[in-house]
């Protein structure tokens, strides 16, 4: 083993201990209360140009873990040697700015949580809704990081949130409305008007029953904050992740300094914000920091891990992992910055087109720069006015074309919490935007 260890230039460990609680209330009945206690570690070792990674659950012998990861790295490097990986330097992160928590969810009795869910459900069950589901999630965890360079740091974080969905049906047509909020501290349920949100989920489901599916085609469009945020994250954010760039799987490769978007567009990733993607340091112990991905239309920066920062030149701080998985380059809180347009101006600008609201998810191909997102609902815009409610509309197109066809950026930035699933690992993120008006986009409908 000593022989191998001489060739291991770097190793690090993340030990994570935590617990989570979930409660599911389904059609008025508690369907699930579950608690989960976990402990585990993820250990990396670097030998030449090869990484070895070991993930262990339960009781952990770190020394043994480092040896196992080192063996993997050594063996990989022996079998397929390649150029040595360099790592950009990191300093001890400053531990400041952790979200303040006024009410620890663990101090709230489970009965009280169940009562809260029941009142959320009651509010979602507006006339016409025939099925509801409310989920409560709470998690707390402690992360300890240390590496062979002597860096050691740790933090504890807890988060809490809920989601509510309502389904309405009529003549064999089913439509759903959903709302969710995630944040820090049980006071979230005081700050957010959760009962009103629940009502909104119910109303959406009922309204959508009457909505029409429009004819698709190319036309001007307004995106609401949530859908535009999904675009910022999926289409632009992923393409700016330096690991994808190095794989040759990004349209943003070699574009730094170029005008790639309308000058109205500034896109930022900022893990220091107390949104759902917050972290004080990343999975490599690098201090979290704000990155301007696009500044006034000019592509400014990729998002980096220590490895990609050394290769492409840049600053690390965006390397993240779900639990004990191997960290990869990820976003945090990603958003299009505020402009100055009002919504009325956008309606005037678009005249005849569609207003798309909310997101039922989407996907991108970062290599080809194309994307597809489904809106939750929308309105037809006729003569500069919102008219008929519509559903089952999707937006697709080329990322760079859309970025250049943004003609107005609103002043009403709003963030939405979610989970991003890159590399099969879910991590908490948020994304957002103000309203955007786009001169031309491909909409799919009936």
């Amino acid at each position: 083993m000593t022989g191998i260890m001489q060739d291991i230039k770097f190793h690090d460990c993340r030990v994570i201990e935590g617990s989570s609680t979930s409660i599911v209330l389904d059609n008025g009945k508690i369907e699930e209360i579950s608690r989960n206690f976990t402990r585990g570690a993820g250990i990396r070792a670097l030998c030449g140009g090869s990484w070895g990674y070991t993930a262990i659950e339960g009781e952990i012998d770190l020394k043994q873990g480092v040896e196992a990861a080192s063996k993997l790295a050594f063996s990989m490097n022996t079998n397929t040697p390649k150029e040595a990986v360099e790592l950009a330097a990191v300093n001890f992160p400053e531990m400041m700015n952790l979200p303040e928590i006024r009410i620890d969810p663990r101090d709230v009795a489970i009965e009280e949580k169940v009562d809260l869910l029941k009142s959320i459900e009651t509010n979602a069950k507006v006339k016409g809704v025939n099925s509801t589901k409310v989920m409560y999630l709470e998690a707390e965890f402690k992360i300890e990081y240390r590496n062979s360079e002597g860096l050691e740091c740790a933090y504890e974080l807890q988060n809490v949130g809920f989601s509510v969905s309502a389904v309405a049906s009529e003549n064999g047509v089913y439509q759903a409305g959903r709302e969710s909020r995630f944040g820090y501290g049980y006071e979230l349920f005081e700050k957010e008007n959760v009962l009103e949100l629940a009502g909104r989920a119910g109303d959406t489901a009922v309204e959508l029953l009457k909505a029409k599916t429009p004819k698709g085609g190319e036309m001007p469009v307004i995106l609401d904050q949530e859908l535009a945020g999904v675009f910022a994250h999926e289409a632009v954010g992923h393409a700016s992740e330096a690991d994808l760039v190095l794989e040759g799987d990004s349209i943003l490769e070699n574009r730094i300094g170029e005008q790639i978007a309308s000058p109205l567009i500034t896109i930022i990733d900022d893990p220091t914000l107390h949104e759902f993607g917050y972290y004080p340091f990343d999975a490599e112990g690098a201090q979290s920091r704000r990155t301007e991905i696009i500044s006034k239309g000019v592509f400014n920066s990729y998002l980096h891990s220590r490895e990609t920062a050394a290769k492409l030149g840049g600053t690390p701080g965006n390397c993240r992992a779900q639990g004990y998985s191997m960290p990869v380059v990820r976003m945090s809180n990603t958003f299009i910055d505020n402009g100055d347009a009002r919504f009325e101006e956008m309606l005037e600008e678009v005249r005849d087109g569609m207003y798309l609201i909310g997101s039922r998810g989407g996907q991108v191909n970062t290599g080809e720069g194309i994307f597809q997102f489904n809106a939750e609902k929308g309105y037809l815009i006729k003569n500069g006015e919102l008219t008929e409610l519509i559903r089952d509309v999707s937006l697709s197109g080329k990322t760079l074309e859309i970025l250049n066809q943004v003609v107005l950026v609103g002043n009403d930035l709003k963030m939405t919490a979610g989970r991003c699933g890159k590399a099969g690992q879910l991590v908490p993120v948020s994304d957002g935007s103000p309203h955007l008006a786009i001169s031309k986009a491909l909409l799919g409908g009936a």
Partner: protein
Amino acid sequence: MYDLARKALKLAEKAGAEEAEIYYAASHSTGVNFKKDALESAKDRFSEGIGIRAIVNGAVGFASTNSKIKLENAVEVAVAEARVRENDPDWVCLPSNEKYPTVSGIFDKKVEAMELEECIGYALALVEGTKEFPGTLPTSGGFTRAKGRQLILNTNGIEIEEESTAVSGFVDVITVNGHTSTAYDFAVSRSLDIDFFAIGKSASQLALKSNGGIKIEPQKTDVIFHPFAFSDIIEEAFSPSIDADNVQKGRSGLIEKLGEELAVPELSIYDDGMIEAGIETSVSDDEGIPSQRTTVIEKGVLETYLYDSYTAGKAGVKSTANGSRSSYTSPPSVGLRNFIIDYPKTDVIADTQSGIFVNTIIGAHTANSISGDFSVEARNAFTIKDGALDKPVKSLMISGNAFELLKHITGAGFDVRKVGGIITPSIRVSDLSVIG
């Protein structure tokens, strides 16, 4: 932790559980990944944990842990949670011991014994395969082998232990010259019967063939879905509606449709937990119900929904052995086993005068899982002219409804693939709306 499973069951009874269940799962996986054409990392993952279901007065509590030290606490929490809940009149009981089928092909000693060097060899085969067609580069991919062990114990006498193995390979390819096009291919199996070189080769070939796509006019046309594309639609837009839990809660598009003609009479669909070497094959489901073959659609007619033991108890029927868990951290819910799409096979492309062939789709998960409506972006799509693939199509949106789709199937290919648990040939559907 394995040694503590039986103790945990006793602890649960002692803590006041009227019924209890211990679900133990362990796995060890080794993966070798590449970025571009260079191997990047080797990963070893050891996972082991226990999930406890405790029932008190017809109410269920659940807790899980991967820590021996926390196990006793987790058992107590599960029982305490059950006490907090009101009696659930729909709860019947945990499954009891029954006769179990014999299944085969799910454990391969060779996979269990694989060394890292062999894994590296298969990862390299994926990369080498892509080089058969110059002009492309892999972007990422990898080889993984895994061995799992699971133990289900409950207070009604169930005690089922099983070991299984799996290997998989995945590769993403991009063209390096001219217009950019991408493609991927993957395969998963219980044993080392996959030609990884061929997987790399086919991804590379598909990326090249997709280069320089044309734009097509919006139209209604015949669309042939490759097994990758068709399985995606089935999983996201159709299968949620045959989940008995969704049916019972009013969230299915197939409520009160049993016995109805749902699809063309040539189509049958089976859910089968027992097929040789299936990815979802095992002696029992994840709560100890003996695996079985269930006819979901027989000659176009919807025969049954799929049940786990809870939803079956609620409906007063027998479980179809579809109790499924993604991990020891979650209680069981209804999930597909091996899901087999059966339709008379022909040389389906050769039989098609004009239409579109779609290899993969993106955005299937955005489908409306209740109404079955979907609107997806087709990838690696081609026009079909006079019974052969003609030109690549640049960008294509396909909108439709999964239930309508089943009524408009007009053909299937010989190219049956196991896409995870879904086993399907290419499927041709008439009159679908596409927007280029």
